[in-house]
């Protein structure tokens, strides 16, 4: 996977949209998505008739709807000539931007709406068939929470996890949510180390404050070619510099370390394709379903060595003005996880930062961002899908 199809940096994001994450919005996934589309059209002056590409996530609330992408297009008055439904969990958002870039470079469409939404409060199907229902759930090995309990125990046995390191991360991200109007309102309260350490154990050693809170929400971006962006008179644009994706990492290792993931492949690979190293990254917007997932990514992408994640977190200023700003809007942990649109929380925040529109949490002189996605937790391996994208302005 040596080549970089984004090397010319001629595919750009010209607008981002996001609505406020809410616990019980009372809206459907298409309704939530429509609000983001309205934002994007408003920002660019485009109409629904100008959009000829549509890439969407499969909302949990729409699982079982075999024709969802068509039905959504119909709801939105869109007539896409290129249509993509992606269901790689939290990787769907970045995965769709990457797929849109490929479609644009192939000339299959000119302007792609990458649109993500989920109405988790309406319906969140808990049944994933195949080995999960047959070999996991009857054992009580049920969902990401328990899997992350087992995974974190494995890491702790090998490297001794420092709880305060995750506490530091929790507080940093919470500070981002305090100044992020799109964060779930319930989470916009200051957090102390004591709050973190005293939060309820869910599946030892995972605490309540290690986990995301699922909510309703939507987000999206418009992706096009740089030539088209200029012709449209786009005032701001973010370039796609590199992307790497892997699914079902390392299937032939029977006894893997459960915290080792595809990030050790896609992290260094995306940076190499972009021609940079970790030292050049101005800010990191990692997917965060659990806080520990950020620590795993830091180590495996190469920000620090294996086992040094705790010390790295404790010794690094992760705030917007710090050495390595992380998830400046609160991440999903503190802004909420809008179901299977969750990958858009960190992605949109990275674009917002690169547009210079992050207000009081703006990262000074941010020229690039590393954004990641995590999708699916398989049977005692990590993760189903891992993706990394480098964005530049």
């Amino acid at each position, binding site marked *: 996977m040596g080549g970089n199809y984004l090397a010319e940096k001629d595919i750009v994001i010209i607008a981002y949209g996001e609505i406020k994450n809410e616990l019980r919005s009372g809206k459907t996934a298409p309704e939530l998505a429509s609000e983001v589309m309205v934002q994007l059209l408003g920002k660019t002056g485009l109409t629904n008739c100008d959009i000829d590409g549509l890439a969407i996530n499969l909302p949990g609330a729409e699982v079982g709807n075999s024709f969802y992408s068509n039905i959504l297009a119909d709801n939105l008055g869109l007539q896409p000539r290129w249509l993509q439904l992606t269901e790689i969990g939290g990787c769907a958002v970045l995965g769709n931007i990457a797929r849109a870039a490929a479609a644009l470079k192939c000339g299959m469409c000119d302007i792609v709406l990458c649109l993500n939404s989920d109405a988790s409060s309406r319906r969140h199907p808990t049944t994933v068939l195949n080995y999960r229902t*047959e070999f996991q759930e009857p054992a*009580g*090995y049920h969902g990401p929470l*328990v899997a992350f309990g087992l995974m974190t*125990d494995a890491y702790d046995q090998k490297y001794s996890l420092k709880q305060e390191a995750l506490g530091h991360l929790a507080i940093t991200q919470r500070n981002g949510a305090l100044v992020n109007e799109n964060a779930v309102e319930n989470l916009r309260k200051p957090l102390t180390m004591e709050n973190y350490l005293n939060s309820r*154990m869910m*599946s*030892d050693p995972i605490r309540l404050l290690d986990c995301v809170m699922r909510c309703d929400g939507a987000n999206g971006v418009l992706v096009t070619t740089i030539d088209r962006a200029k012709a449209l008179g786009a005032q701001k644009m973010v370039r796609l510099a590199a992307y790497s994706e892997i699914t079902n990492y390392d299937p032939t290792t*029977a006894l893997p370390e459960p915290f080792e993931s595809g990030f050790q492949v896609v992290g260094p690979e995306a940076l190499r394709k972009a021609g940079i190293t970790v030292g050049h990254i101005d800010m990191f917007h990692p997917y965060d379903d659990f806080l520990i997932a950020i620590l795993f990514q830091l180590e495996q992408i190469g920000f620090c060595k294996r086992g040094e994640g705790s010390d790295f977190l404790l010794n690094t200023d992760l705030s917007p003005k710090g050495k390595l700003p992380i998830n400046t809007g609160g991440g999903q942990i503190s802004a909420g996880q809008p179901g299977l649109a969750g990958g858009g929380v960190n992605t949109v925040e990275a674009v917002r930062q690169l547009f210079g529109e992050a207000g009081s949490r703006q990262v000074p002189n941010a020229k690039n961002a590393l954004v990641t996605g995590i999708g699916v937790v398989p049977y005692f391996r990590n993760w189903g899908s891992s993706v990394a994208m480098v964005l530049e302005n």
Partner: protein
Amino acid sequence: MAIPERKPRPIPTPTRTTTPFWEAAKEGRFLLQYDPAAGKYQFWPRPLSVYSGRPQLEWRQSSGRGKLATRTNVRVALRGFEDIVPFVLAAVDMEEGVRVVGRLIGISYEEAKPGMKLKVCWEQLPGDARFFAFERDA
């Protein structure tokens, strides 16, 4: 006040691939798929070997013995486990070189130490289904 109806503990639904596993489970035997080309076992049962991509797999009986790799104390009431929480779930490295996750029976979270010897035992589920769990192996 109405008591919300509880969903039952999930029970496995065998497929064409997994039926031999569950039939053997009824007799207390824990089967693993073995790929003779690769000389390796795999768990959970799949339609082909993850090592060679070949469908020529054999069913072999596991010793049922292994060692605790990692564990977690599940405290949240998962569907069908409301009356069981907290319970200890462990990943067990079996003698055959595969990892199996199951509930620990008769072992507290404090007692569940990495490396401790465990063996497969069986829990009776509703109907005639049995599901694997682990207990101490003296």
